[in-house]
């Protein structure tokens, strides 16, 4: 299946988009499988949305899903 995956902030460097901006993953896989496919540090995958709804590591993905994954920010001083 093909997904539109937006990796925010420092996660952007893990992108594996094709030339049309899609990320490819086997059918029936989860956010966790996507994160592992991309090489994201799983312990920092804390805020996920799928088609505008809250998701998590066990959220099942479908063809053409729109995914955002945010790492937590820390600075402030």
């Amino acid at each position, binding site marked *: 299946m093909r997904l539109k995956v937006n990796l*925010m*902030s*420092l996660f952007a460097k893990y992108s594996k988009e094709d030339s049309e901006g899609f990320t490819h993953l086997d059918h029936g896989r989860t956010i966790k499988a996507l994160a592992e496919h991309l090489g994201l540090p799983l*312990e*920092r995958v*804390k*805020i996920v*949305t799928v088609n505008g709804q*809250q998701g998590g590591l066990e959220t099942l993905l479908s063809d053409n899903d729109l995914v*955002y994954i*945010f*790492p*937590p*920010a*820390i*600075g*402030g*001083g």
Partner: protein
Amino acid sequence: MKSNGTTKSPQPEELERYRCNLGTVGLDGQRALFSSHIVIVGLGGLGGHVLEQMTRAGVGYITGIDPDVFEPSNLNRQLLSDVDSIGVPKVDAARQRVQQVRPETGFLGIRRHHEAADEEVWAEADMVFDCLDSIADRLSLAEMCLHAGCTLIHGAIAGWYGQVAVVRPGSHLLARLYPDTGPGLEKELGTPPFTAALCASLMVAEGVKAICAIQQKDQDRVTYFDLRDGLLWSVDA
């Protein structure tokens, strides 16, 4: 409200000074602000802007906590700093600023780490602003607020990005948000002035809504923004 930051009712001339707030928060909301007691932990990039805006919002009492003095590398983003204040304790600059903007607002500066502050600080607070810059300190503060039953307004930045959350009494949101106590993205992405100012503004908006009982949510939510692409999301967390 746990406390009463202003002991007397606002005078007509004071309400006139805040009439540009009234259309947004209402008279009852402005009175709630006049009576509120907030704690700002960290008076740097986020904390300086939070102090400025909450003072102008008209809060009655502010406790500011920060052990540090200003350094040259603070000048890019920290509102309370200038070239003449290098070496000055941040709590002293905060006290002076509050006095300049709203002398009616009481201010207590605590030049210590927040873990060394007296328990009364948290017991008397209506709201605590997390303007810190390490996961360990943020989780420690969240734990103290959880123990004291305080609402915690959390904000954090990294480069073009930032996040804000309202941590309600009883919530373990920050412990869920942060995986460990390792280094953050900001070391790589920096902490520019515009991201700090916007994040602080979002924190203040959430704080004012909570004090004025406007648009309150039962669900834990995190607002995340991306200034590089001009985007903002609020998601359940």
